[in-house]
């Protein structure tokens, strides 16, 4: 493969496209697919065939506004349809070239206002299983550029310059990580893509893998070149069958086109990727546990240092990044690090994909520039809280994060701002809660999650989460005293400070943040035996006997 050949593939794909007057893109992300969007696609294809219009019906990955699904996007008009049913196929096809079908307006309002697509740039426009469509939109340009024009050091320099930080939650500077692994001596190095995504309410990585898997593969290949690795693994949870299937196809396609394998693009660079399935343990998203799991061992974290960069998979230097992190790499190389760093805030660059869920009008996947305020996302893009209820809190960062109240709605999203407010960027779950949510119950929910997901290796997390969960239950039931609250606070401190891995270290965060902003709700449960949101059934403790 060289530049001309790449352009040829792109040209061919474009030619293919030009044969048609219209494109009907049907979303086949998990959410729309669960509402039988595959049948809708078939119906539209059948209609298109019989009506004589030159129309290409394509399946695409998640288009974002899942709540309005099944979604259909008609090009070149750019018309979006929502809540499409099989029976709508005829009308959609007849409307091609004319006025859109009014009743299928998805009523997305300002959903796309302020969104900025980098990671999701191809979403809705390509068939995730066709590598050539990816190439037609600039795919693999970056890899080719890297292999033919850049030294590994130059690649790392661009990534560093971009200011990209890990999207898996921690926000570690990606360029710095690459640089470390590149500098460690080792005959064999590995690149791992972390697609374990276990946070409740998060589905960004799944979406990226389902809609644009080539982008992740390209990102990994560039990373491999930069650090000197020849072998990569994508670790995906087995609960994501569609992502696994699309990725499997994508890997095969990439190999067929020579983007993976030996002597990639006629250079001396060789790299290939295997998929490893996770069995759904949240802790296996932690890098050392993930590595143990790939090695076929019990997935438990181990103390760091040594970091995977020095001693990772099979003891060799290993680069591990999140799906979205890798997905950002090709555009950074294509447009340069400075382009990327022009977006976002001082210390958080680029965009971030969020999964908007909970009590919000427009649930879905959004990509916004760093620095956008929570209010813009929740009320602008998401359309605010439905049913005339009042906004109460937004939870970010999953079980490691926290709940932010109304006062913080004007907070500009960045790694550091979220942390100082007592929450976390996390992997991008954003759960909106209205005044029907009891914040103690919310804290209890997340603690239950940590308790059942604790690997059991270290005692503060293994036993501490159980104790905290029990105390939260006691508070919810109206059986707790102030002493219990003190004990809970102390447990939070000790578990956070002494646990072995991030799971235990951050498990107290949902409690701490709700204690910080919603302490009065805790006290109402304790002192007045009353749940302000009316969620918990509080009754004072009675001594039970046989």
């Amino acid at each position, binding site marked *: 493969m060289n530049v001309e050949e790449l352009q040829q593939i792109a040209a061919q794909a474009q030619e293919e496209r030009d044969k048609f007057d219209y494109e009907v893109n049907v979303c086949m992300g998990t959410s729309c697919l669960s509402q039988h969007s595959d049948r809708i696609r078939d119906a539209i294809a059948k209609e298109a065939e019989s009506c004589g219009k030159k129309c290409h019906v394509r399946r695409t990955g998640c288009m974002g506004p899942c709540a309005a699904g099944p979604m259909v996007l008609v090009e070149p008009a750019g018309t979006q349809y929502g809540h499409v049913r099989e029976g709508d196929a005829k009308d959609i096809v007849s409307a091609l070239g004319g006025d859109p079908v009014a009743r299928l307006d998805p009523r997305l309002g300002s959903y796309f206002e302020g969104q900025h697509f980098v990671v999701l740039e191809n979403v809705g426009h390509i068939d995730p299983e066709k590598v050539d469509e990816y190439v037609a939109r600039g795919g693999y340009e970056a890899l080719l550029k890297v292999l033919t024009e850049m030294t590994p050091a130059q690649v790392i320099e661009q990534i560093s310059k971009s200011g990209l930080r890990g999207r898996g939650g921690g926000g570690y500077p990606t360029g710095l990580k690459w640089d470390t692994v590149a500098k460690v001596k080792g005959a064999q190095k590995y690149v791992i893509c972390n697609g374990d995504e276990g946070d409740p309410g998060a589905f960004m990585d799944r979406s990226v893998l389902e809609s644009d898997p080539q982008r992740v593969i390209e990102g990994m290949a560039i990373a491999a070149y930069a650090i000197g690795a020849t072998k990569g693994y994508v670790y995906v949870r087995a609960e994501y069958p569609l992502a696994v299937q699309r990725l499997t196809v994508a890997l095969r396609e990439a190999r067929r086109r020579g983007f993976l394998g030996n002597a990639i693009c006629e250079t001396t660079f060789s790299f290939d990727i295997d998929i490893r399935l996770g069995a759904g343990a949240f802790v296996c998203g932690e890098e050392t546990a993930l590595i143990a799991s790939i090695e076929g061992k019990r997935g438990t974290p181990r103390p760091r240092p040594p970091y995977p960069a020095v001693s990772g998979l099979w003891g060799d230097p290993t680069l591990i990044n999140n799906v979205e992190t890798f997905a950002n790499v090709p555009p950074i190389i294509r447009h340069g690090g400075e382009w990327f760093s022009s977006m976002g805030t001082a210390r958080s660059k680029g965009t971030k994909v969020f999964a908007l869920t909970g009590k919000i009008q427009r649930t879905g996947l959004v990509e916004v520039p760093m620095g956008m305020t929570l209010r813009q996302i929740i009320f602008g893009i998401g359309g605010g809280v439905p049913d005339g209820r009042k906004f109460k809190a937004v939870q970010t960062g999953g079980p490691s994060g926290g709940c932010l109240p109304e006062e913080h709605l004007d907070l500009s999203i960045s790694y550091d701002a979220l942390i100082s407010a007592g929450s976390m960027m996390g992997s991008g779950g954003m759960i909106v809660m209205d005044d029907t949510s009891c914040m103690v119950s919310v804290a209890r929910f997340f603690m239950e999650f940590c308790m059942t997901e604790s690997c059991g290796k270290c005692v503060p997390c293994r036993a501490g989460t159980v104790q905290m969960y029990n105390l939260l239950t006691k508070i919810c039931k109206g059986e707790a005293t102030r002493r219990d609250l003190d004990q809970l606070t102390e447990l939070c401190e000790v578990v956070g400070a002494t646990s072995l891995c991030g799971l235990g270290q951050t498990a107290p965060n949902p409690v701490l943040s709700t204690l910080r902003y919603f302490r009065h709700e805790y006290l109402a449960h304790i002192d007045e035996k009353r749940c302000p949101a009316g969620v918990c059934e509080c009754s004072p403790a009675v001594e*039970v006997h*046989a």
Partner: protein
Amino acid sequence: MTDIRTLATVWLDGCSGCHMSLLDMDERLIELSSQFQLVYSPLVDRKTFPERVDVTLVEGAVASVEDLKKIRRIREHTGVLVSLGDCALTGNVSAMRNTCGPQPVMLRVYEQNVLQPQIPTEGVPALLNRVRPVHEVVPVDVYVPGCPPSADTIYRVLSELLAGHVPTLGGVAHFG
């Protein structure tokens, strides 16, 4: 701390081993008894807990409704409450039934392997579903581990109390 003049000892759900250990102080008992008055104890006759006691040693866990009433009253009328021994401190053997609840224990004792099976209900206090260490029920001032705590340990505790400090047994006595 106020002068220690009166001492009480109580026996909740325990085996009386701690009281045996107390008696094990032998001649030191005589030395101590010249300094305080034993106002209430399984070892003396008095039936009701006095209005005011300076120091109370509690042996045993809180296992029945009766224990619960007693310990609350004792706490109210006591200056320094001493949890004496593992049962008071941890629940110990008394709390072993907490893994299964009281029913299986009752059945085992009163129904299985007996000639006239009958679970007593009259004249006996109802068992709590969960046996609890004393400090889970009322605040405790001094913790004395051991099953039983040695006579030396108890002597040390009492002497220190008489000398006017609240002793801590950390690093001195262990569970078991």
